[in-house]
């Protein structure tokens, strides 16, 4: 069962940027907005050394991690070759400009940091 919770408007996220969403259980979530207003959500933790992806430069449907410049796909959460690794993805619903995350999904335990 999905339990959608509106967190912000699409316009609250910078174009080619991100906002961070904190949750009580820990494990921040990065919510990204692309140039064509698509919204994606990933665990805010690069699969490489745990860098905060929300702080990276967004381009196309990718983000460059601010620590060591790994490129992570927003859609699949996976590092672009030759780097290897994936970060947890979260479902996003956008309706009438409102961005919603699934509370049920967010309630699941945070994976232990690599």
């Amino acid at each position: 069962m999905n339990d959608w919770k509106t967190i912000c408007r699409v316009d609250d996220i910078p174009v080619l940027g991100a906002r961070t969403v904190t949750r009580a259980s820990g494990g921040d979530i990065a919510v990204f907005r692309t140039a064509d207003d698509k919204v994606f959500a990933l665990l805010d933790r690069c699969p490489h050394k745990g860098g905060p992806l929300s702080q990276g430069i967004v381009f196309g449907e990718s983000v460059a991690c601010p620590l060591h410049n790994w490129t992570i796909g927003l859609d699949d959460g996976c590092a672009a070759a030759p780097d290897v690794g994936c970060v947890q993805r979260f479902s996003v619903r956008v309706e009438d400009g409102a961005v919603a995350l699934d509370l049920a999904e967010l309630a699941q335990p945070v994976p232990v940091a690599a």
Partner: protein
Amino acid sequence: MVGNGMAGVRTLEELLRIAPDLYEITVFGAEPHPNYNRILLSPVLAGEQTLADIVLNPLSWYDEHDITLHLGKKVVDVHRSRRIVVADDGTEAPYDRLLVATGSNPFILPLPGKDLAGVISYRDIADTNAMIETAKTHKHAVVIGGGLLGLEAANGLMLRGMSVTVVHIAPWLMERQLDEVAGNMLQKSLESRGLKFLIGAQTAALVGEETGPEGEPGPARGRVRAVRFKDGSEERADLVVMAAGIRPNTALAEKIGLHCSRGIVVNDTMQTITDGRIYAVGECAAHRGIAYGLVAPLFEQAKVCATHLGEFGIGRYLGSQTSTKLKVTGIDLFSAGDFAGGGESEEILLSDPYNSVYKKLVVKDDKLIGACLYGDTADGSWYFDMIREAKNIAQIRDQLMFGEQHLGDTGHAGNNRASAMADSAEVCGCNGVRKGTIVKAIREQGLFTLDEVRKCTKASGSCGSCTGLVEQILMATAGAGYTAAPKLKPVCGCTDANHQQVRDAIREQHLLTIAQVYEHLDWRTPNGCASCRPAVNYYLISTWPHEALDDPQSRFINERAHANIQKNGTFSVVPRMWAGETNSSELRRIADVVDKYKIPTVKVTGGQRIDLLGVKKEDLQAVWQDLGMPSGHAYGKTLRTVKTCVGSEWCRFGTQDSTRMGKELERDLWRMYAPHKVKLAVSGCPRNCAESGIKDVGVIGVDSGWEIYVAGNGGIKTDVAQFLCKVTTHQEVLDVSAAFLQLYREEGWYLERTVHYVGRVGLDHVKARVIDDVENQKRLFERLRFSLDGLPDPWFEHDKARVDVRQFEPIAI
């Protein structure tokens, strides 16, 4: 096979490798020894090795390969029609194919007395043993012939305690392998070891002892006593070694009717031209008129011969270039090709008599055709390869003399340094990448370009100082598939345009947004990538200040958050302290902020400021506010700091007020974005306590004013700043510094430090625009003023600085 020497046995080895069961092999050897390394007789004579050390194929080897070995039996006849070989003891052996490898004989000068006892040649184990035995009981030796073999013999006899004189008829030693200079250096060096030389002396006769010394049972009658020369003089000798050259041993071949001319004449398959069943290799064979006396060509012959004996029928021997090395311990000598030069050729010479080093390279038509090295022969084989391959050396001519190592550091040509590295050797110090890792990645992932290697392994991806080495490894591993990087690289994979083309287009077309640039230059991606967008953003705002709008989303996080991101995602804050000076109220505020926001680490920076490390992003705005100090811009491609010494205000040595000068510079230039970070320093006297010599702009106070240095760097590779000019007033320092930095801001490529920028355009280019052209200096200065005019402090004027403050507010669920 007739002859059990190096060339013949090598042929058998090659043959056994490709066709192990084709022949039943019989070998006749006149010497009572299995195949040994004749080249190493000299070290044996010199006492550096023993006979056992130099055996190449022990008797067991012959057994293992079912070879019938007749040692100590000299073949005296071959019945070619019946195909039977006959030895001196009557042993016979039939053949389908006969390999003649009888080698060579020493040339015995036809002198009176040549048959006296104590007159020997230097060719085999028996001669060597004779010399070793003689040296135990006799004192005086004369070696006739100052060639390779003669000198090695003389050296060995001397080491065994004899007093040795070398008689040499030519004007200098080893005249066939060395030029006069090297020959004389060699003579000097050998003389200092105790050898005596009679150069140009012609031997007339060898004088025998008619009787022993009076009243004593002297040595056997007829032993040699002295060498007599044409001028009548004599040199005492208990032993005479004839080392006047070798002649192919063709006695057997001639007897059985094989055509001989300076050796047994063979074709390119090493087959004798007389009898298709008979082959000849080694020193006895004459190929295209040349009988070789060195081991490398003989082994090449062996290989060719074996393929034909093995019925593979491939390969032709086309002759060899030969090179020479002298095997006298402690003397390095090498020669190859046409080292005499003359005619159309040119000579490159290096002569260092003090260190006894002499090198001569002979070049003709951009090709190395000969080399003669004395004292330092490390690059001998490298030169030799170039001679053999007739390689065009035009590109490396100016560095040729300094050898392969020298070339290996920079160019592509010296790939041997990379090949020679062990797999465990570290190539990229920044990322800890070892050679083996790079080679593996290249092989397994099929990489062909430097960029691919960089992406896959991170090697050379950081400071780039190992780029040349990585390229060499790539070239050595990927071989012909290697693609050299183009000279002017595109900005990134999104475009083919390079940095200069982007800068030019923005200025010429008056482009004002990133989107316009991408459209105009046909970018392949809709909104670029993390490499090109910050570059293009910088080019826009530096070219069209107050007109093009800064795009924070195209900036790296540090310049977007105006703080330095740390490995755990927190930030560091460095407030500005003008020229490194602070006071009690600033320090008190800093202390309060540290307490209030529980900042874990406070550190003094190298740029004379205080760094607060571990600040949470959501606290940044409040920290700035509470500090009440300007942004230090320690996070950006901007003016960072102006480091100063105490200066004349306090220092007893100070000649200028460096702190005031530093403050003036910093107040003039702060908030200035640039292609990369910019660091300044001002020292109040030439003691230079502020380390002005490694800054982008370094100012040093002298009695009469200020010296300005530019393009120094204390980073990955330390580069000393270059002197730009000397001025008298503070205002001139400000004018010149600003003009230089504006030129860099306008012409530098993104992420190019001043040292690389000035390296690219040249200091003369900078001087012409900043110093010589006073009007231009003024215009540069004014353009910088215009750019910086009214720029906000991003820590306090968020709107004006286009700081998106939403980033400091996380959304809580």
